[in-house]
């Protein structure tokens, strides 16, 4: 069964100079136990998409389209229903930069139990026990429940966030750049914890990152975003080994690998567009080496190129 289905999701930020089209008509579907990687460069709208799913968008954002979660449209839900039934209980998150995502003057344990108490009718003691188990699970140790966040190291904070995201046994976890700002070895440790939990608990996740390597390691599906649009979506192996969209091709080739033989790194000429006035038609055409006339005139449709492979490019649709 489909766990989450985005249909024509749009999110525009109203600014004085016009609408910034941060997310412009994206669609994808994920099943239970899927781990979808949402990849793209900074400012491509991946974090905005996450905020839209969590309904945490800033007040100047306009969201349209459909977000179907287990068949229910999240955007049509009332605030209180969404808050009580979906947030954390069904969909939880691991935020970017755990040092800021944890409250500075509340004990980390309390921050977890508070989430449990908000959604489940349990006693304070039970909640503390659950939190302790979660801490053991992510490898921090339940004895650290009464610490403040500033007393934990960066890796431990990130683990705390992971433990917190598991507090109410959610159906879906959205992780926004979960390992950015961590050192390589700590990052590997955290990723290992995430992968283990994924296997053990059968989690469904959306992982948002600018780092394709990280997505390659953790996900089974990947969505590549460029300038507010998903340009390619599909199974992780297919997307990485046989990329269809020129942007995906270039982006993957731009990532250096520590394994295998040395290869030339690809570069993409030009700069990412301003989402206030993105290029017309295909948004990638000014930087695309294969740009044709039609690319400048017509926006490519987002089509199913293969089974469960979606792409938006004139090269493919022709």
């Amino acid at each position, binding site marked *: 069964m489909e766990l989450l289905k985005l249909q024509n999701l749009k999110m525009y930020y109203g600014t004085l100079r016009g609408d910034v089209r941060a997310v412009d008509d994206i669609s994808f579907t994920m099943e239970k136990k899927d781990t979808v990687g949402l990849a793209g460069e900074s400012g491509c709208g991946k974090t905005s998409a996450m905020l839209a799913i969590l309904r945490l968008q800033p007040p100047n954002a306009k969201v349209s389209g459909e977000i179907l979660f287990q068949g229910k449209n999240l955007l049509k839900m009332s605030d209180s229903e969404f808050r009580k039934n979906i947030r954390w209980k069904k969909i939880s998150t691991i935020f970017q930069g755990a040092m800021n995502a944890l409250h500075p003057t*509340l004990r980390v344990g309390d921050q977890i139990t508070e989430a449990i108490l908000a959604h489940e009718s349990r006693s304070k003691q039970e909640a503390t026990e659950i939190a302790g188990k979660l801490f053991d699970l992510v490898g921090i140790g339940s004895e650290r429940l009464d610490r403040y966040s500033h007393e934990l190291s960066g890796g431990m904070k990130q683990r705390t966030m992971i433990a917190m995201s598991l507090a109410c046994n959610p159906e879906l976890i959205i992780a926004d750049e979960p390992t950015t700002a961590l050192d390589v070895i700590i990052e590997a440790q955290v990723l290992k914890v995430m992968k283990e939990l994924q296997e053990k608990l059968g989690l469904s996740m959306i992982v948002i990152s600018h780092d394709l390597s990280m997505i390659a390691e953790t996900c089974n599906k990947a969505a590549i975003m460029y300038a507010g649009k998903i340009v390619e979506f599909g199974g992780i192996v297919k997307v990485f080994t046989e990329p269809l969209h020129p942007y995906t091709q270039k982006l993957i080739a731009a990532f250096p690998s520590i394994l295998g033989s040395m290869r030339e790194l690809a570069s993409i000429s030009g700069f990412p567009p301003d989402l206030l006035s993105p290029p017309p038609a295909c948004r990638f055409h000014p930087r695309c080496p294969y740009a044709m006339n039609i690319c400048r005139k017509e926006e490519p449709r987002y089509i199913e190129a293969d089974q469960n492979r979606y792409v938006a490019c004139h090269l493919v649709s022709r």
Partner: protein
Amino acid sequence: MGFREYLAKRIIVSFLVIFLVATLNFLIFIVYPADPTRYLLDPQLARTPGLVDVIRDQYGLNEPLHVKYVKYLGNMFSFGILPPHFGYSFQTHDFVANEMAWRMPLTILLLGLALVGNVIIGIPLGIFAASRRGTKTDVAVIGAGLFTYGVPTFFVQLLMILFFISFVYQTYGIKIFPAGGWISYPNPEGLINVMGDILWHMALPALTLVVAGFAGWALYTRNMLVDALTQDYVATARAKGLSERTILFKHAFKSIHPQVATLLTLSLPGLVTGAIITETIFGLEGVGKWYLSSLDRSNPDFPVVQAVLFVVATLVVVCNLVADLLYGVLDPRIRVGQRR
């Protein structure tokens, strides 16, 4: 450096500050050229040989500087408990402490009422505005706060007098507030009546201080809260499905507690300033008015000025110390020495 060591350092510094203030306080009146005997005495009598010296002796004005200084320090640091109780007032020819003893409670009452009023109106209003960021309520609070910044308190007080006293009372005869002073004449009978009467007289002055100040408090609180509300941990709390109330009070407001404590201490100097003007305008016989009249050009009363300055400085320093303590309790992160 531990918190305890830090606190010990603060206490030592505080004591030094008080000492420094006391010394400056002494020096400034050495610099002042006027001779108090000039206005202590009837000009006729001043010609009487020896009388000036007698008076000067009585007030300890003939002693050498260092003796004066030591005596002065003794006077000050005994805090009015040991004689001669902050020295003799030139005006009343009595111990300064005796008069301060009944004036001080009046001032503390006034400032206490004003502070409590500001806090219980301003802070909730600020929270309310922050929770409604971007709405008209919020804009109104911001506007009022900015407005407060540009409006002299004494002008607000004059306007209130104009309205409540000149119009409502004196023109239309409706006596909501008394016309001035701190107690009715003749004095009411019985302790409770007296207390009530004093409170009634305090009401309008305190109210004016609240009116002139609450919007500033609201704006500060609002700004700090809005800052806190845009922090990532608030987004976390929201994503956790906590109610807006919990987010606002448990998460956002809790994180600004230390700043509120700081704000409280920083508002003290302003309050003291407010006392002088308010008491003068409303004719309250508190320390502020007393202080101002003691600075009268033709008839200055130095011992009073010195005593008041010293007591105020001590109070402010002590309050700052308390705030430091509070800060350490409220913020587990306390990074020593990096307050504010």
